């Protein structure tokens, strides 16, 4: 049975399609939903010292907004978490810790990777996640 679904979001359009598919499945299985946002450690580390703290706070705030979007879309009680680290491994460990049955991610992130290439986070999650990973590619602007 599907009891626990983890939705990893970065607030991007690519993630939002995965969010709605995953929420629909979770509803039909009456599964518990966790929404997870990972602040990319490399984003923070790359910033100059004097703005690093502010940047980190801003990214965390972005995360809260993205998680709030998932909560609203779900219309149910969900657990949320903001972690910091390498998204691929953070998502994997979160899934393991919470004994997830399914993890949902978008195929591309905020960094606007090329449409013929899988986003680095999606690829890392798909490669290493201990539980099945649900992905939905973003529709082309023309067909969306």
């Amino acid at each position, binding site marked *: *049975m599907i009891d626990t679904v983890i939705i990893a979001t970065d607030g991007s359009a690519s993630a939002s399609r995965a969010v709605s598919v995953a929420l629909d499945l979770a509803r039909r299985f009456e599964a518990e939903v966790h929404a997870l946002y990972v602040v990319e450690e490399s984003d923070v580390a790359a910033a100059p010292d004097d703005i690093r703290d502010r940047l980190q706070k801003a990214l965390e705030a972005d995360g809260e907004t993205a998680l709030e979007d998932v909560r609203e879309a779900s219309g149910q009680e969900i657990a949320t978490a903001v972690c910091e680290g390498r998204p691929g491994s953070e998502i994997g460990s979160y899934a393991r810790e919470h004994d997830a049955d399914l993890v949902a991610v978008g*195929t591309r992130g905020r960094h606007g990777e090329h449409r013929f290439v899988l986003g680095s986070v999606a*690829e890392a999650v798909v*490669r290493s996640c201990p539980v*099945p*990973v*649900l*992905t939905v*590619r973003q529709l082309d602007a023309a067909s969306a």
Partner: protein
Amino acid sequence: MERALAVVEGTEETKQLVREAGELAAGVDAELLLLHVTTEEEFSDRASTLASIPNYDTEYSVGQARDGARQFADDIGREAFEELDVEYEAVGALGDKEETILEIAAERDCDHLFISGRKRSPTGKALFGDLTQSVILEFDGTVTVTTV
């Protein structure tokens, strides 16, 4: 999810994938297709092996290859769902894997694909399949990847 398609391969991981697909599909009353694709290369290897057997004059036809592929998918389904009540339809095809998977998914109006994310190289090293990556990027619906 209305109709799901699971890609059945000749690997150890495939049964786990098929089970995950069956569980999800059955849970939402979706139909499930199990597809095994025999590549042209596998086909011609098999054909030349059979042709090299002295006095073996039965030809290995495309139709037989397709039947064999369907049979393979069916066997995996039977084993994977031994103790589960999951219905499925086995489909066999001959051709390029990526093209054929996407073609059949479109023909049969599938909205959710299940594919394994890990391939083992002959040396046992785990590799991330290019096939998995292209299917994720090319398919319009949902793709669920299992990496066991």
